[in-house]
């Protein structure tokens, strides 16, 4: 076990865990931040997406020991009062069906708009290709991202 100081959603948190523990399990099991989901454990589905500084990463394969001083943002810290443009657009379009993959989709979309505030439909498709949705909400995800991009 090793001690790590993590900056999560703007707050310093100390955890004592095995250094190879993926960030996902630190968030979920140790810090009880349940918004980030487990889907595959192999970085294949995107349900576990969080931001490391401004970049979307798959927390299920990202060891806690590699986080260092980079800032982690989870869905719980994406906005105060659910007022991130992406979250507002998600609500407006009633994107979710079961909802399980949606926090990962939202975090990935937030990273996309940060680096490319006005993505084309093709750019959205390619940027979101790593995030699976079994219910099939891809159309509304795309529409919500286009809506959100208007406020960038």
């Amino acid at each position, binding site marked *: *076990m090793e001690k790590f100081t993590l900056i999560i959603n703007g707050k310093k948190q100390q955890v004592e*865990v*095995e250094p*190879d*523990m*993926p960030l996902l*399990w630190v968030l*979920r*099991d*140790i810090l*009880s931040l*349940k*918004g*980030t*989901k*487990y*889907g*595959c*454990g*192999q970085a*294949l*589905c995107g*349900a576990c997406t969080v931001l490391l500084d401004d970049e979307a990463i798959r927390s299920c394969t990202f060891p806690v020991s590699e986080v260092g001083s980079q800032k982690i943002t989870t*869905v*719980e810290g994406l*906005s105060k009062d*659910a007022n991130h443009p992406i*979250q507002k657009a*998600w*609500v407006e379009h*009633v*994107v*979710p*069906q*079961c*909802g*399980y*993959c*949606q*926090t990962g989709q*939202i975090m990935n979309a937030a990273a996309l708009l940060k680096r490319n505030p006005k993505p084309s*439909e093709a750019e*959205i*498709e*390619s940027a*979101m*290709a*790593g*995030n*699976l*949705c*079994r*219910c*099939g*909400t*891809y*159309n*509304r*995800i*795309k529409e919500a991202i286009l809506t959100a991009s208007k406020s960038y």
Partner: protein
Amino acid sequence: MIPKLPFLKSKDPEDKSKVFIPSRRDFLKISSLATGGFLLGVNFQCSGPKGNTITFAPNVYLSIDSDNLVTIIAHRSEMGTGIRTSLPMIVADELGADWTKVKIVQAEGDEEKYGDQNTDGSYSVRMFYEPMRRAGATARHMLLAAAAQKWGVDVSECRAEDGQVIHSGGKKIKFGDLVEIVRELEMPNADNITLKDFSSYKLIGKDVAIYDNLDIAIGKATFGADIDLPNMQVAIVKRSPVIGAKVISYNDAKALAIPGVNRVVKIEGSGIPPGLDKPLEGVAVIADNTWAAMKGRDALEIEWDLGPNQNYSSEKQLQEMLQSTSGNGKVRRERGNFNSARQQAGQVIEKTYLAPFYAHATMEPPTAMADYKGDGTCEIWAPTQHPQWARQAVAEALGIDYQNVKMNVTLLGGGFGRKSKPDFVVEAALLSKAAKSPVRVQWTREDDLHHDFYHAQSAQRIRAVLDKNGNLSGWNHHTVFPAIGATGNSDELHPSDGELGLGCIDFPYEVPHIRIETHESKAHTRIGWLRSVSNIHHSFAVNCMLDEVAEIKGVDPVDFLLGMLAEDKNLTFEGELKGDFGNYGEPLDKFPWNTRRLRGVIEKVAKEANWKQAIASGKSVGFAVQKSFLTYVACIVEVEKGNNGQILIPEVHYAVDCGIGVNTDRIRSQFEGGAQFAASLVLTSAITFENGKVQQNNFDGYELIRMPQAPKKTHIHLVESMEKPTGVGEPPVPPFIPAMCNAIYKLTGKRIYRLPYNG
């Protein structure tokens, strides 16, 4: 415990499989209890005073507090269809509640209290539209009577709206302020309850956002894996790699040496047959957290007796199944004399169709939390589609009365039929008992793909006979696939009547000679039901064949099918079926098989998608129609080639007749999603077995379509209807599959006879 599957209802006395025992009567018995408050005039108050508030609870689905809180119970499981919103909004609309202030509470698993909770078979709205309206309307009648009494006016001068009763003279009173009076009133006789006119509904028939919309967007929605309890542990299980495999011995020394691992427990498996509600044989590692449990499992050393399925190859079986279809099978439907039609044929077209095993691959892999207490009670939190079955299965495994199992239902991260089966819930209960602490069992994605209850692989052969005038005079459909019933009874070698009623024996067209036959096949894995069940492979074969026959005849496939429907009528298949026609658990007089409605969706989709113009302009469009789960659906899919030669889907059109549409936004979302779900079945997904083991491990082996491959635009054209509402969870899938295959044929010139399509 008998699982209830109304969609596979069968009256066949020879059909002894536990799965197919009818549940309709049971439901009526239970539902009369659940809504008995109305029927018997008994006002059972669920709760007394709490603090300063008092409560009016006229039935199990609804309560109104004196502080104006209206609480509606969602008693069916939310797995993405929106049912947790769609049923409560029916109650709220009839009541006249302020929807924006209604609180929805998820019911525990308790069918004696709530009626049927088995969320499956696309029947939640069909079964509960009427009871939910009555639940709301009865409470409204009583509130109006209470207000009339208070004001000394005639009840006919009062109406309920936005959470208050309003008098025609302008006086208003909030529901909460009537609670004290209304609690003392007699329940009105059910005959005196009038339901609102459809045109006056504010929610029913409209787009209503799902109740959990915001919670999901901010990460606060609670799924099965999100339950935390003090002193809980996490379990990861190494399960038998082959169905029927048994643990000879295991060494847990290395697993126990991993920090955080606390205990290793063997789970006794069911063997062969595996059963629908039993855990697989396995060894569980119980740890402080998921990562430790995963590493612990990797460190287990297990010696297996792999048993009789260790040489099983799904490809070898599929080829044998295909071979069997060339011989005579067990006749399941017969009209006229197919053989004589064949002898007098102008032309016989004979094609075969293969489809693979499919896994459900819900985004949330199975997981459940159990807290077994020393006093012989157990509390569960689980994402289950069938809480009562899970409750019974847990009770049986623990050897306790089911009344001592409290079954809390979380949101489900997808279901599609997988989470009907309670095996994973039973695992959690057994492990909690062994660990003497709360335990949450977590399946990994690999576990999910390796140990699912799969949609069965299938082989089909269809012979279509054209007579000397070129008319379709004979239809001979052979189908073979391991039956769901075989998961509980290894002697089930033929598909049940229930499974054949899903797109096979209900062939609706006017063909004078029809013969439908099945062949034997064994189950070497756990067979289950996946969104639309055997409609998946039946619709694929039947509709691809019909498209090919139309082409050979030189007619448009839409015109061909319209012509073969002949005059409008209700189909009964009487005198032709060798067994029972399930009609998805409904009597035919209540839900007739109506060819006018099938014609209606065909004509509508052709018109809305500009079918004739699309064909004339050379677009690669495909068409199919399939009634399933009592809903009539026609579909047109357009495909094109992408830059890298991959298949893209620019546009999909659905015409849908599901009777009254309750939440139109969720009807559309089911079709948008259903198209994408079905596109994975066509393009990317297949489970195969070698040496008894599943060969796909994760989403790199079992692929689902991703956003670039998904249909870009899906248009849903709803038939305006005042017919009884039917379901929409499953019906989007069956017609999409052949419509897409027929479209790919236009694009590539090659017919698809085997799924998935791989270029």
